[in-house]
């Protein structure tokens, strides 16, 4: 597959105005060297969970990120087949979450202390 077809999908509530929130998530992915695609979602107040799931499903790397209007970020993987995210965090830790998305793709250990664990 060509380079443009390999990416982590990031879906965010189109109402989000704080570009900084997205910038940090993207920076995390870029530092890890994993491409991403940013896309706004225009539905009425979508949840981070819903955005994360849809992102994961439409992501060629199976890893998706959803960001809601309150700055909650969900990291999701297509194979999980459940609305529970693999990792969840607030915009304050966007960089770490973006890095973790990249590391999930690369099979590297995650920074778990920074993010919150998935409840099981």
């Amino acid at each position, binding site marked *: 597959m060509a380079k443009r077809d390999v990416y982590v999908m990031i879906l965010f509530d189109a109402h989000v105005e704080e570009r900084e929130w997205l910038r940090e998530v993207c*920076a995390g992915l870029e530092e890890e060297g994993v491409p991403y695609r940013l896309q706004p979602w225009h539905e009425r107040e979508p949840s981070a969970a819903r955005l994360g799931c849809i992102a994961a499903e439409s992501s060629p790397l199976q890893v998706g990120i959803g960001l809601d209007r309150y700055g909650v970020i969900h990291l999701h993987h297509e194979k999980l087949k459940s609305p529970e995210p693999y990792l969840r965090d607030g915009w304050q830790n966007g960089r770490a979450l973006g890095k973790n998305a990249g590391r999930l793709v690369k099979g590297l250990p995650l920074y778990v202390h920074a993010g919150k664990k998935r409840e099981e």
Partner: protein
Amino acid sequence: MRRIVAGVDVGNSSTEVALAEVAGSSVTFLGQHLVRTTGIKGTVENVKGVSLALREAAKKAGISVEAIRLIRLNDAVPVIGDLAMDLISETVITESSMIGHNPDTPGGAGLAVGVTVPIDALSEKLLPKEPCIAVVPKEFDYEWVAARINALVENGHSIEGAIVQKDDGVLIHNRLRKKMPIVDEVALIDRVPLYKRAAVEVALPGYTIRQLSNPYGLATLFRLDPDQTIQIAPVAKALVGNRSAVVIQMPKGEVVERKIEAGRIMLIGSQRRMEVPIHDGAEVIMEAYGRIGTLVDVQGETGTNVGGMFHALRENLAELTGQSAAEITISDFLAVDAVIPRSISGALAGEMAMESGVALASMVKTEKISISRVADQLQAELGIAVEVGGVEAEMAVRGALTTPGTRPPLVILDMGGGSTDAAMMTRAGEIHSVHLAGAGDMVTMLIDTELGLADRELAEKIKRNPLGKVMSLFHMQLEDGTMLFSEAPFPPETYGRVVIREEQGLTPLAGPHTLEAVREVRRSAKRRVFVTNALRALKRVIPTGNLKHLSFVIMVGGSALDFEIPQMLTDELGKYGIVAGFANVRGTEGPRNAVATGLIQAIAEQGGSRGETGRIRDDSL
């Protein structure tokens, strides 16, 4: 007369029980149980554990505890051990002359030389004629940094590389028009010397740097004369194996591997005394030990590290035994080389060095442990007759001899937590035994230290279980390279990590170690302690001292349950033609319950023929 009797073995770690029906000299075993020893061995707190173990064994046997007519407690050997570990080398960087670490995501690749200049100082100066290396503290955003460097380069500045505090190496690099090597995650960036000549090298993934780890590479880059090259050479040596590095040319910048004043160890033997410097390492120390005859005592040179070590040991043991420190004499010790990861002092990015050290297990004789107090209390609480009897070594041999395929002459190796005990039974039924320092707990200590865990519990888990590496949400690679496929996703804290595979779940390891590295530390710790001690024990306990004169070695005790230690010894002792394996007590119990089983057999023999039970000689006491 048929009666139900119990054999009880109170060890430092475990309390084991066997129940049997004895009729004359015939014995039918009914049940057994193991619990953790409650309290310190030989104190009345042990009673709690013994009662529990008896209850559980009775339950398994389908009888009530009251049906037991006689309990026999083992007469524990009065030796006690302790562990110590110390460094003998230390790496120190003077004058912040280098950074050598492996950030996951450095920027770019290649080699650059220039003068270190703070990123915000660059435009305030005139156009520098010299090439520069930008120094970027965490206050500066990557966009700003990249824009600034691009603008400066546009204006004729020659910026050749960068040293960055945050994890921004790739982000900055992606925004630069001129490509350059960038070392990031330099935690202590404020200690990077400014306005000095520096070289930055980043290797491609999977490679290591070549120029900064070569003294003549540094000489070329910094145009050094031979004397300066000699001075900077230890820096090159310290950087061997790194993926990225910075070297800063400082008048006195050096990396020193300091030998710590570790002092000498004095071995006092029956035939002679010897002094060995700890620096010579474990092999030389143990070799000297072999040449002094029977050990009388060991002392460490006062005022040195090893002196401190032995002092602390004596204090610990004095406290445990209630003797005065001066009375304590060391009856055996085991020295083992250890590799200890330590942060390099003076490092700027948390670099580690593998220092060398020595681990010591020591053992002292104590007053006889008053097991009779335990017996009295037990009798009072349960209302069952309790007697103390049977020397531990003899009981263990009797129990181990119930293993199929064995006969005297043989040696049992009781591999416990604090000591490795060996007993030889000759063809004539005579028993010799020795108690050596160093066993399962020393293995745990070595794993703990060499992996830099500072967590004994975690080290114990590593010791007892195989490893895996979580490769993806649903796959794990095992030690033998096979893949395990899971239905549920592995939890995030285990993702991409080396994990301990316990039955109840996975425990992830932090740290940079690969699966292979952790495995090697684990296995080598086991080899260093148990292979060494097995050979030491056999040489002492065999009358001729010659391993070829022996056919059977039977392993018992907690460490014989280990999933690889018995195999290591099967393999190692197999080389001498010895049949070595873990016991299968009574053909069913594996390496457990040997002493408890032996106690019951002794009861039966006395109740039956009242025959001789063998003369005992305990060489170590």
